[in-house]
């Protein structure tokens, strides 16, 4: 079977086309979805892409979390569908209470864009199974509101239950508490992170590696993982 993975476009989404392209490169069929509809078009998995939906008014991701299609997204999350929130998509998932915690302005107040090293902390989720626990990867990071926060007790719970999916390695670029770059829900089907796997899927367009400039494709494994999860669920 060919997995069908939907990418929801919101007003102000920037990376929806990049996410569609990454899905195609990984061998699945990308399906364009629209925030104003109530139709997920029967997709097997979902990506909420990066950008600045609604100009980041109110709070980043807050207004998008109230979009019509989000009621279907919540139902799909509850039914176990793999859902990935990237950057602004991660902010939407926390605002929609599909993932715990919150994201605030970077501690240094500035937009940041860098190729970021991450450590994979949980390699059992629908979006990380193609990694190994402790593996280090490099994918681009670019945001203004990337500081992950939660209460001390919530952070302890996330650590204790293995819900920290990714941690910043080398440097903490934005003041995120406990270096958290991405988290998963208990079931492992909903994952959100600030860095951008969809920008590291094709040689010539990814981060630099020691082998060659722009040859990094560490983002591919996110989509490989989801495709494997969809195929396994269908079997």
């Amino acid at each position, binding site marked *: 079977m060919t997995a069908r993975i939907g990418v929801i476009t919101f007003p102000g989404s920037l990376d929806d086309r990049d996410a569609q392209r990454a899905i195609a490169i990984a061998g699945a069929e990308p399906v364009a979805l629209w925030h104003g509809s109530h139709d997920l078009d029967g997709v097997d998995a979902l990506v909420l892409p990066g950008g600045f939906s609604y100009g980041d008014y*109110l*709070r980043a991701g*807050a207004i998008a979390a*109230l979009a019509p299609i989000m009621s279907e997204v919540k139902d799909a999350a509850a039914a176990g569908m793999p859902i990935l929130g990237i950057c602004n998509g991660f902010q939407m998932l*926390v*605002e929609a209470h599909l993932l*715990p*915690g*919150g994201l*605030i*302005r*970077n*501690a*240094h*107040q500035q937009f940041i864009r860098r190729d970021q090293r991450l450590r994979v902390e949980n390699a059992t989720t629908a979006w990380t199974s193609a990694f190994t626990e402790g593996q280090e990867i490099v994918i681009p990071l670019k945001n203004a509101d990337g*500081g992950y*926060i*939660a*209460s001390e007790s919530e952070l302890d719970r996330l650590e204790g239950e293995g819900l920290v999916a990714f941690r910043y390695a080398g440097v903490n670029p934005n*003041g995120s508490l406990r270096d958290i770059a991405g988290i998963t829900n208990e079931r492992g089907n909903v994952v959100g992170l600030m860095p951008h796997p969809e920008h590291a899927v094709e040689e010539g367009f990814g981060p630099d590696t020691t082998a060659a400039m722009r040859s990094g494709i560490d983002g591919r494994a996110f989509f490989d993982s989801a495709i494997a999860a969809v195929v396994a669920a269908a079997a």
Partner: protein
Amino acid sequence: MPTIVVDVMPKAELLDPQGKAVTGALTRQGVTGFTEVRIGKRFELTVEGEVDEALLAQARQIADDVLSNSVIEDVVGIEVVE
């Protein structure tokens, strides 16, 4: 027309990067009387007619559910201004 004013502040225990930037700028200006600046949000909800208890309850509800995110912010005031 009456207005319901909702004030939202970043949680006291969390870093407020915007406030910190303003604090730094004031210090550089030679302003010394203030040890900290914190920046919040003020929402003005315009009402047609009377503000009754049901409308206030609705304002409190959206203040908690939409206007603020309890993970990062607190609603610090809801008042009616004529």
